[in-house]
């Protein structure tokens, strides 16, 4: 396969060459950034102006709707919020079928992801009885998650997966809350689930969104575990959890996970010195001890980050 004929063949050739010469992804990225394609450089200004223009149009539309809101009837309120969202979604799908406009799909799906749930909430507010806002949110997020994820199954676009998974988590979180899962267990379960799914995403062409989900999942997981062990005899175990997460970050090749777990470890050391050493030897000495530990951990984190880079 010396002359690749399509994108997949080109990617296969690049990965073969990278393996043969032991080139890492970061090195490829750094080289591309050092020598940006001239075509891309000339395109950045129109793109930024395009995004800015779209933001103004969107903002203007939102302001106009806000000004007219009290004068609108119930059907008009639903149509004016849900309608543009649905149209943006359909336009997004149409752009996916034409290579020339494919880059317009992400802003269109973003607009749809904001307006469609808003329109559904407006519909429920105008027409549904009862005041269970959480049930309304479960219905809305569940339906939008299905819509985005089913579309993703057909079009395999990363933005569709991102929004679909965002709404999926919102619906599942509410479902867990309504099922009686306590806040801490909900955080641990959902955080772990998001991290596992992010790990699976990291091994697909949609790896661009994996760091975001690693970030959310790991913060949620570590936060919830800390809530469980805080001010208990088990609080020492958090040290093992945070350290374990740092090792896991090397295994999972995720710098995001490393940053979050390092932050958690530093925060825990602050809690630990405050809890056990503040009144024993004196706060200033405790601070000095903590400072020494921070320097040690930051050195260790940098070393682990290098490991991720070279792995």
């Amino acid at each position, binding site marked *: 396969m010396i002359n690749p004929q399509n994108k997949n063949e080109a990617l296969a050739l690049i990965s073969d060459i990278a393996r043969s010469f032991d080139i890492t992804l970061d090195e490829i990225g750094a080289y591309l950034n050092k020598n940006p394609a001239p075509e891309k450089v000339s395109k950045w200004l129109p793109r930024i102006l395009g995004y800015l223009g779209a933001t103004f149009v969107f903002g203007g539309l939102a302001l106009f709707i806000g000004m007219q809101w009290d004068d609108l009837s119930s059907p008009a309120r639903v149509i004016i919020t849900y309608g543009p969202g649905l149209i943006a979604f359909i336009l997004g799908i149409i752009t996916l079928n034409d290579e020339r406009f494919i880059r317009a799909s992400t802003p269109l799906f973003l607009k749809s992801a904001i307006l469609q749930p808003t329109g559904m909430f407006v519909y429920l507010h105008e027409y549904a009885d009862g005041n269970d806002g959480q049930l309304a949110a479960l219905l809305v997020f569940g339906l939008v998650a299905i819509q985005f994820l089913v579309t993703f199954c057909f079009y395999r676009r990363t933005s569709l997966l991102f929004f679909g998974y965002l709404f999926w*988590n919102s619906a*599942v*979180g509410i479902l867990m*809350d309504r*099922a*009686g899962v306590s806040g801490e267990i*909900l955080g641990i379960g959902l955080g772990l*689930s998001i991290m*596992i799914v992010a*790990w699976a995403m990291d091994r697909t062409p949609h790896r661009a969104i994996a760091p975001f989900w690693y970030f959310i999942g790991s913060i949620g997981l570590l936060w919830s575990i800390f809530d469980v062990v805080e001010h208990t005899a088990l609080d020492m175990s958090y040290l093992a959890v945070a350290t374990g997460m740092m090792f896991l970050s090397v295994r999972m090749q995720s710098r995001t996970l490393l940053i979050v777990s390092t932050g958690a470890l530093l925060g825990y050391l602050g809690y630990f010195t405050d809890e056990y050493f503040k009144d024993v030897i004196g706060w200033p000495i405790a601070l000095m001890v903590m400072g020494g530990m921070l320097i040690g951990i930051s050195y260790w984190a940098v070393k682990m980050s290098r490991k991720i880079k070279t792995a």
Partner: protein
Amino acid sequence: MKNFFKENAVLVAGIALPLMLALVFFMATRVSEGSGEPPTTAVVFTTGYYDSNVGYGFDVKDNKLVFRFNKPDYNSHMQKPRLYIYEPSKKAVREIELPDIDNTKKSASAPVPGVGKLNTLEKSPDGFVFEQGSSGGGSNLMTELFGGGSRYRNQCIMRKDVYRHVLPDVSDYSCRFIGWVVE
């Protein structure tokens, strides 16, 4: 399909984990609710009342409920609280009309008719305690991001050990216990 699950076992486990947790907790809650005896003592409670010495408030004197008003030093908007009674025999919450009270005087009070004798002990004679829903569960980043806000914030509940009895037709985060109807 079998191959899909085999090849994507990690992904499937990640997606199934929160659903399994929801199922397990749902079943555990149903079992604990099914095993408990429902409350039998009526409870009087209020919403929109923030336990302040000034403005509108409630006192229980000699087992009788009294609605009182203490004029604040400065002019401020004083909203009347709302008073409710939950009668387990009828499985319904009923609003009680508050007596008229002269809020131009420095202080005034009037007995609330139709409530009966109250006891203000924490536990009812049948062993229940009255709680606002939010005291039941903790919140964190994940519940705030993905939990849709805790629904328990808007519930008034009667709890006996692990058994929770949610009061029907009340959705207010400010519900506050007044007393148990003992006669």
